C-alpha cells in the first residue's frame, strides 16, 4: 500500500544528495554572479528593476546587486543574507564574503563527491577558520597610539576600498574627504551625521566636503538670504492651521459673522504662536512641517529666515550640528536651547539653491556634496563613499589594520596548510580545501584584472614562504609586489567578518540534507 502523500499538493521534498546538489548549485551560481565584480579591476553590473519605469542601477557593490535579485533557491538566499549582514555590520567586503562562501562550498562539493561526510568537512572548516583568524591576529598592525600614522592608515584603507569602485580615478580626493568626515565624528559610528548630497553636473572631482551643514531647501520669499551670527530655533510643530487636538471638537456656528469671528480667532492664535517663536530672540526658524503663507509672511516681516518642510533627518542633523533642541512648544523661551552658527547663506551648486550653515557650534556633522555626470554615477558614487565611510568609522573603533591585495588570504592559507599537515584524520582534507578556497580570492582578483592568475598566485605563494613577507598582488602593475610599499591596506574587522560569516554560512548549507518546500501561498485574484 503506497502512501499517497504526506504533503500538500504543491509542496516538494528533496532529499540527501539531491538536496545537497541543489544548494551547492544555487550557492555557487550566486557566488559566480558577483565574482566578476571583485577587486580593483572588477566589472560592474546593470540592474534593471521590474517595477514601473524600469529604473536602472549600475553598481559594483555586492550587497546592492544581491539585494535586487529575486531568488528562489534557498541556499542562494542564505548567501544573499550574509552579504546583507556584512553590509549592515561593516559596510564593505560584501562581495568577498559571498565569493569566499561560494568557494568553500565548491571545495566541499568535491570532498562530498569523494565520500567525506559533511559533518567531517564542517569540523575541518571550523578548525581552519579558527586557525586562519589567529594567523591574521598575529600579523595585524595597530597604530592606535600614533595619530599621524593612524591617519595615513585610514587614508590607505579608504583608497583600497575606493579603488574597486567608480571613484577609483579620484580616489585620493575621495579618501581624504572620507577620512576627514569620519574624524569629525570623533569615534561615534553614527554615520547619520554625515550627509551626502547628490547634485548632477560637474565632474566627480568637483565633489567636496563641507565643514558646515547644507540643507537642501529654499529660503522663504522676502526673507534675508544671509544671516551672520544666527540663532536658530529647530522646531517640529504645525504651522499650517493649528488644529484643536481635543478629540471630537468641531465648529458649529449659525451665522456667517461667527465664522468670520472664529477665523479671526484662529489667525490670532497663529499670530500668537509666531510671536512666541519670535520672542525666543531668533533670526532663523527651521520647521519640520509645512509653514503656510500667513505665518511665513509674519516671519518675513520680523526679518526672520524661515525654512519649512525640512524632513526628519534634516531636523535631527540640524539639531546635532547647531546644538539646539527640537522644540514643539514655545511657552518658555528662556529655557529652550537655541542653536547657533556663524553664518547662514544661500549657495548655488549647479543650478540649485541650497542653504548653507557654517561655523556651527558642534562640528560633528558635515556634508559631502557629490557632483557627477549622471544620476547613475552619483548613486554609485554615494554607495562607494558609503562603503568607505562605514569601513573607516569601524576602523576608528577597532584600529587594527592588515595589508590588502590578497595578502591576508595568502597568510591565512599558509597557516591553514600547515595545520592540515599536522592534523590526522579525514578532517585534514577539509582543512586543505579551506586553504584552497582562500587562495581563490587572490586568484579571482588577478583573473578579473586580466592577469595570469596561475602564475601570479604561484609566485605569491613562493614569496609567502618567507617569514614576514608583505607580498600581494598589485593589480595596477600586474605583478607581485610589497603591499606595504604600495600602501594597500584593509581593515582587520572587515576581513574577520568575511572569514567568520562565510564559514558560518557554508557550514549552515553543508548541514542540510533535506529541503522541504511548502506550497506557495496562493494570491487571491484581485480583479
Amino acid at each position, binding site marked *: 500500500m503506497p502512501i499517497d502523500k504526506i504533503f500538500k499538493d504543491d509542496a516538494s521534498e528533496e532529499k540527501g544528495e539531491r538536496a545537497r546538489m541543489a544548494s551547492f548549485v544555487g550557492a555557487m551560481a550566486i557566488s559566480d554572479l558577483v565574482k566578476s565584480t571583485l577587486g580593483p579591476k572588477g566589472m560592474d553590473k546593470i540592474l534593471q528593476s521590474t517595477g514601473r519605469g524600469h529604473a536602472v542601477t549600475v553598481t559594483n557593490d555586492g550587497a546592492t546587486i544581491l539585494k535586487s535579485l529575486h531568488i528562489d533557491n534557498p541556499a542562494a538566499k542564505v548567501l544573499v543574507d550574509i552579504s546583507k549582514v556584512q553590509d549592515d555590520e561593516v559596510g564593505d567586503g560584501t562581495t568577498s564574503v559571498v565569493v569566499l562562501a561560494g568557494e568553500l562550498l565548491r571545495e566541499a562539493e568535491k570532498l562530498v563527491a569523494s565520500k567525506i561526510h559533511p559533518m567531517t568537512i564542517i569540523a575541518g572548516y571550523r578548525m581552519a577558520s579558527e586557525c586562519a583568524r589567529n594567523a591574521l591576529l598575529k600579523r595585524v598592525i595597530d597604530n592606535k597610539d600614533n595619530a599621524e600614522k593612524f591617519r595615513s592608515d585610514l587614508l590607505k584603507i579608504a583608497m583600497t576600498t575606493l579603488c574597486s569602485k567608480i571613484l577609483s580615478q579620484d580616489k585620493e580626493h575621495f579618501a581624504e574627504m572620507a577620512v576627514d568626515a569620519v574624524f569629525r565624528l570623533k569615534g561615534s559610528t553614527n554615520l547619520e551625521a554625515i550627509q551626502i548630497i547628490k547634485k548632477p553636473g560637474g565632474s566627480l572631482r568637483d565633489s567636496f566636503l563641507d565643514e558646515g551643514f547644507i540643507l537642501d531647501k529654499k529660503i522663504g520669499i522676502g526673507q534675508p538670504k544671509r544671516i551672520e551670527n544666527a540663532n536658530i530655533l529647530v522646531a517640529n510643530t504645525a504651522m499650517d492651521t493649528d488644529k484643536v487636538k481635543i478629540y471630537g471638537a468641531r465648529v458649529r456656528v449659525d451665522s456667517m459673522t461667527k465664522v468670520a469671528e472664529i477665523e479671526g480667532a484662529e489667525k490670532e492664535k497663529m499670530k500668537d504662536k509666531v510671536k512666541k517663536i519670535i520672542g525666543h530672540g531668533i533670526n532663523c526658524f527651521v520647521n519640520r512641517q509645512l509653514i503656510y503663507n500667513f505665518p511665513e509672511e509674519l516671519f518675513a516681516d520680523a526679518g526672520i529666515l524661515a525654512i519649512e518642510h525640512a524632513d526628519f533627518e534634516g531636523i535631527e542633523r540640524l539639531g546635532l550640528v547647531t546644538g539646539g533642541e527640537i522644540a514643539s512648544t514655545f511657552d518658555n523661551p528662556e529655557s529652550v536651547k537655541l542653536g547657533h552658527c556663524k553664518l547662514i547663506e544661500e549657495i548655488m551648486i549647479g543650478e540649485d539653491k541650497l542653504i548653507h550653515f557654517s561655523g556651527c557650534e558642534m562640528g560633528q556633522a558635515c556634508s559631502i556634496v557629490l557632483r557627477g555626470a549622471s544620476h547613475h554615477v552619483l548613486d554609485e558614487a554615494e554607495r562607494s563613499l558609503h562603503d568607505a565611510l562605514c569601513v573607516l568609522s569601524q576602523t576608528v573603533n577597532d584600529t587594527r589594520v592588515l595589508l590588502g591585495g590578497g595578502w591576508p588570504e595568502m597568510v591565512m592559507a599558509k597557516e591553514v596548510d600547515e595545520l592540515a599537515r599536522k592534523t590526522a584524520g579525514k578532517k585534514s582534507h577539509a582543512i586543505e580545501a579551506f586553504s584552497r578556497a582562500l587562495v581563490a580570492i587572490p586568484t579571482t582578483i588577478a583573473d578579473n584584472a586580466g592577469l595570469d592568475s596561475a602564475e601570479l598566485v604561484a609566485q605569491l605563494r613562493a614569496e609567502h614562504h618567507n617569514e614576514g613577507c608583505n607580498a600581494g598582488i598589485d593589480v595596477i602593475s600586474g605583478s607581485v609586489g610589497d603591499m606595504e610599499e604600495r600602501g594597500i591596506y584593509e581593515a582587520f574587522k572587515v576581513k574577520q567578518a568575511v572569514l567568520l560569516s562565510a564559514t558560518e554560512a557554508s557550514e549552515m548549507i553543508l548541514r542540510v540534507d533535506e529541503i522541504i518546500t511548502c*506550497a506557495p*501561498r496562493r494570491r487571491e485574484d484581485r480583479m
Partner: protein
Amino acid sequence: MALAFDEFGRPFIILREQDQKTRLRGIDAQKANIAAGKAVARILRSSLGPKGMDKMLQGPDGDITITNDGATILEQMDVDNQIAKLMVELSRSQDYEIGDGTTGVVVMAGALLEQAERQLDRGIHPIRIAEGYEMASRVAVEHLERISQKFEFDINNFEPLVQTCMTTLSSKIVNRCKRSLAEIAVKAVLAVADLERRDVNLDLIKVEGKVGGKLEDTELIYGILIDKDMSHPQMPKQIEDAHIAILTCPFEPPKPKTKHKVDIDTVEKFQTLRKQEQQYFDEMVQKCKDVGATLVICQWGFDDEANHLLMHRNLPAVRWVGGVELELIAIATGGRIVPRFQELTPEKLGKAGVVREKSFGTTKERMLYIEHCANSKAVTIFIRGGNKMMIEETKRSIHDALCVARNLIRNKSIVYGGGAAEIACSLAVDAAADKYPGVEQYAIRAFAEALDSVPMALAENSGLQPIETLSAVKSQQIKENIPFYGIDCNDVGTNDMREQDVFETLIGKQQQILLATQVVKMILKIDDVISNSEY
C-alpha cells in the same frame, strides 16, 4: 465501496455523499496509517544526535528556515495527511511539555509503528499489539526510574546543569560555542528560578536576537532589552538610577470611549478649548515629574507637543513599547503598570540602576538596555549571529537548553544519553517479555526492538556501523551490568557516557516513551479512514 441495498435494490445512504468519499478499512487502513507515520519519522531520522543533519524549509512566502529541531521542522512542513498531522502534534506536545527531545519522540514513534506492522503481518490483532506496547512502556518507564541518578547542584555549583545543557546544544548548529551558550542558559534559568518551589517561569527569560556580530558575542543581560529608542533624538542616552513610570495611556488628549462632540460656536469657547489643551499636556508631564520619575515608558505614542515638553522638562521617554515587554519591565523593575495619569504615585515607579541606549553596526539600529533592576527576576538573552537564519536557529536551541535546565530544577534525576538509556530499557523490556503469557509477549518484544532504533539512528548519523556498534554496546551493558554505555557519536574513544558527560533529563526520556506509545496506540486503533476524495 460496499453499499447496502434494501429489498427494492435502492442503496441505503449511510454516509452523506457516500460515493464521493474514499474509504479505507481494516488492515489496509492500518497499513496506510503506519506508512504515513513512518514517512514522517523517516524525514526526522537523519536529524537525530550530535552529528544529525539540518533541514532547509522554504515557507509559503519563500522565507527560509534552517533547523535541526524536530518540532520546528514538523510545524513548518505543511503536511496534509491526517496521521502525519498526529505525528506533528506528538512532537509539539513534547515541545510544550519538555522542550527537548522533539526529534527523538518522533523517531521512537516511527520505530514502534514499523514494528507494529510486522506484528500485523503475523496476524496479531492491533488491539493486542497496543496492549503489549502499553505494558512494555510501563516497564520501560519504571526501569528508567531505576537507572536514573540524582545529581546535586546548587546556585554556586551549576556545573552539572551546564553539562546537561551542553548535551542538548551539541546537536545544533551552535555547538561551536555550546559551552558559553549552555552557561548563559543555566545562569538565566537560575536567575529566575524559584528554588524553594522548584519552579521556573520561562516567561521571565526573554530571548532577543539581532543580526550582526558573531555568535560568541551572545550575552546574558540581567535586565531587559527593548528594541526601541528614546522618543526624542536629543534625550539623554544613559540614565543612572532611573525611576521608571510605566504607562499604558498615551500622551495625547483624552479620547473618551463614548461618542461625543465638542461644539465650538463662539470665539471664547475656541480660546478656552485651546487653553485647556495646552494645560492638559502640561499636567500630564507635570504629574510624571511630580512623582519623581526619571524615565517614562509608554505603550502608546506621543503627540509632538507632549514629546517636546517631556524633552524640555528633562524627562526621557520611550514610546510604542509592546505589552509583553511592558509587563516584563514592570516585573523586573518592581514597578506597576499605570493606566491613568491620575493614579501615578511614587510607589508605583519601577527602579533600575542603569538605562542606556546602544547602537549597532553601520545602520541606524539602537536598543535600550535596562539593567541592574530592583527585582532582577527578569533576564534577557541577547543573541548575535551572522545571519537571520542563524539567529532563529540559535533562539530555538537556547529555548531547548532553557527547558532542559528548568526540567532539572524541577526534577533532579538524570539518565545517560547517547542511546544508553534506550539500550538499557530495551534490555529490561526484553527480559520482562518472557514473563507475560499470551500474544502480548510478541508485542513487548517488538517494543524492545523499537527502542533499539534510537541508538541505531544515532550510530547511523555518526557514520558508524549501526548494527555492529549497537550489538557491541548492548553486550557490554549486559556483561558489566552497567547501564551507562551508549553510542560514541563524537568519536571520543569511550562508550561510557559518564566519562563523556552526556546526560538527559529523566522526565524528558520518560515523556518521550509515554507520548510515543500513546500516539502509536491511537494510530493502531484506527481501522477505518473516511476522507473526502478530490473535488
